[in-house]
């Protein structure tokens, strides 16, 4: 750039310009915790347990079909203290994390490649959307016939559940990138790869994150479906297997406790991992986060 010499500008211009800046100053960001968003779900949950207890108290169904909240709590507590719960959570979670990680790599590579060419985008998007709506349990028999009762079956089902959402999220994000930003990148001298890394991927990030979140939810669901069906002692006991073992032993409190654990893991990952990332990304861009 030709270096500007330090010509002094008129003081009047400087003060008008500074005055405009002061007037245009955006109000400072406020950050406060919305307690109602935390308290309200807890109240609803408490009410639900209350109604459950009341229905149990009327003895409308036999104890073996509808145990009391206290019995389920007891069962949950036992499984936590004797370590089976923790072991099952860890087995399932580590499978889900590994499967999801592979799905992120596969989905992202697929998304970036397909996203570069409008013809491929047009071809792939409806197919990926269709795969997204296919319940991943449908892949279980297929996977068993390929991989028999091995971890391969479980990971295959996770991948088929998560990859379409992740790839679709990324492709959708790339599709929605404002042409203006792409032009700005080209004019700034970005090469093809730099354009992808510095402009297109960051622009696609919010939609990509939605895809990742959905991909995680699908990973978790697919894993549970696979674990319930693919139950063999050599595979170790995940939450799905715990659930299925409870059913085999007609142990309703254990079944309900397992469902509870599956739910808790899903919610905790959503709230502790995805929600903060999403909030930060959206806030940085001046977009408001929806929900929590």
């Amino acid at each position: 750039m030709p270096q500007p010499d330090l010509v002094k500008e008129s003081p009047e211009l400087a003060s008008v310009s500074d005055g405009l800046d002061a007037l245009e100053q955006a109000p400072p960001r406020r950050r406060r915790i919305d307690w109602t968003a935390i308290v309200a779900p807890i109240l609803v949950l408490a009410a639900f347990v209350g109604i459950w207890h009341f229905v149990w108290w009327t003895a409308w169904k036999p104890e073996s079909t509808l145990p009391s909240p206290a019995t389920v709590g007891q069962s949950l507590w036992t499984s936590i203290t004797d370590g089976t719960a923790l072991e099952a959570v860890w087995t399932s979670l580590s499978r889900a994390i590994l499967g999801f990680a592979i799905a992120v790599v596969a989905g992202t590579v697929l998304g970036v490649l397909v996203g570069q060419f409008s013809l491929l985008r047009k071809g792939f998007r409806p197919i990926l959307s269709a795969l997204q709506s296919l319940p991943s349990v449908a892949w279980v028999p297929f996977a068993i016939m390929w991989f028999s009762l091995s971890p391969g079956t479980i990971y295959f089902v996770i991948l088929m559940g998560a990859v379409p959402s992740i790839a679709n999220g990324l492709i959708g994000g790339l599709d929605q990138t404002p042409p203006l930003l792409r032009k700005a990148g080209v004019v700034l001298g970005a090469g093809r790869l730099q354009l992808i890394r510095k402009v297109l991927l960051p622009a696609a990030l919010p939609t990509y994150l939605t895809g990742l979140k959905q991909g995680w939810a699908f990973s978790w669901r697919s894993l549970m479906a696979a674990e319930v069906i693919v139950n063999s002692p050599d595979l170790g006991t995940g939450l799905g297997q715990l659930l299925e073992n409870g059913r085999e032993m007609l142990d309703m409190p254990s079944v309900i406790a397992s469902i509870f654990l599956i739910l808790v893991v899903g919610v905790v990952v959503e709230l502790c991992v995805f929600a903060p990332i999403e909030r930060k990304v959206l806030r940085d861009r001046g977009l408001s986060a929806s929900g929590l």
Partner: protein
Amino acid sequence: MTLVDERSAHTEVVPRASVRAVTKVFSQGSQAVTALDGIDLDVTPGEFVTVLGASGCGKSTLLQLLAGLDKPTSGTVETSSQPALMFQESALFPWLTAAGNVELALKLAGVPRKERPERVQELLELVRLGAAGDRRVHELSGGQRQRIALARSLGQGADLLLMDEPFAALDAITRDVLHEELSDLWQRTGMSVVFVTHNVREAVRLGQRVVLLSSRPGRVLRTWDIELSQPRTIEDPGVGALSAEITAALRQEISRHAAA
């Protein structure tokens, strides 16, 4: 139009941009739109050219061709290096801070990492936003965004700056201030500027030469060399008189379409 400079008599002046017999036809299905037809334009080093024309006459198309974002249907467009381009909307990257946007321009221009923070600060101060570096794009006002976009363009190190109605969306006072700042920067940096607008007074206020384009197809209708001295303001009687003359020509051109 061709520019015959007295200086070219002894030393050949290499233009920063030269547009030769450029025609651009957009064909969408059966209806082909001739946006530009036989445009000739030279921009010499340090020159400030303003391009005027009614809406849809091909001003943006001309800048896109100069910026290399599109190819002419026929004719040639040559620039001495990749020009910088500013849009009506700031086109800042919302995932980066103000400083981050400027830094990306430096990075893509190959400025080493160590030198970047200092250069970023210099550029931000040049547009008088030295304290706003860590602000997010959405926390800046329209005028501030355009100034950051200007800093980003300057960071590119281009010797030709293309501006596509960059101040059209701003209020009058902010626009006045930015006119002053731009004139000032242009004189200090010696870069060439092609400034597109449909505001006649703005064109006369800023430019050394005003190029008036006709509409459908876009042709160079007439050019005016502006002898008025800088610094000038939009209220100067000289600016007013010439603006009246150019406005008359522009209105005549627009009415021609009503008659047809």
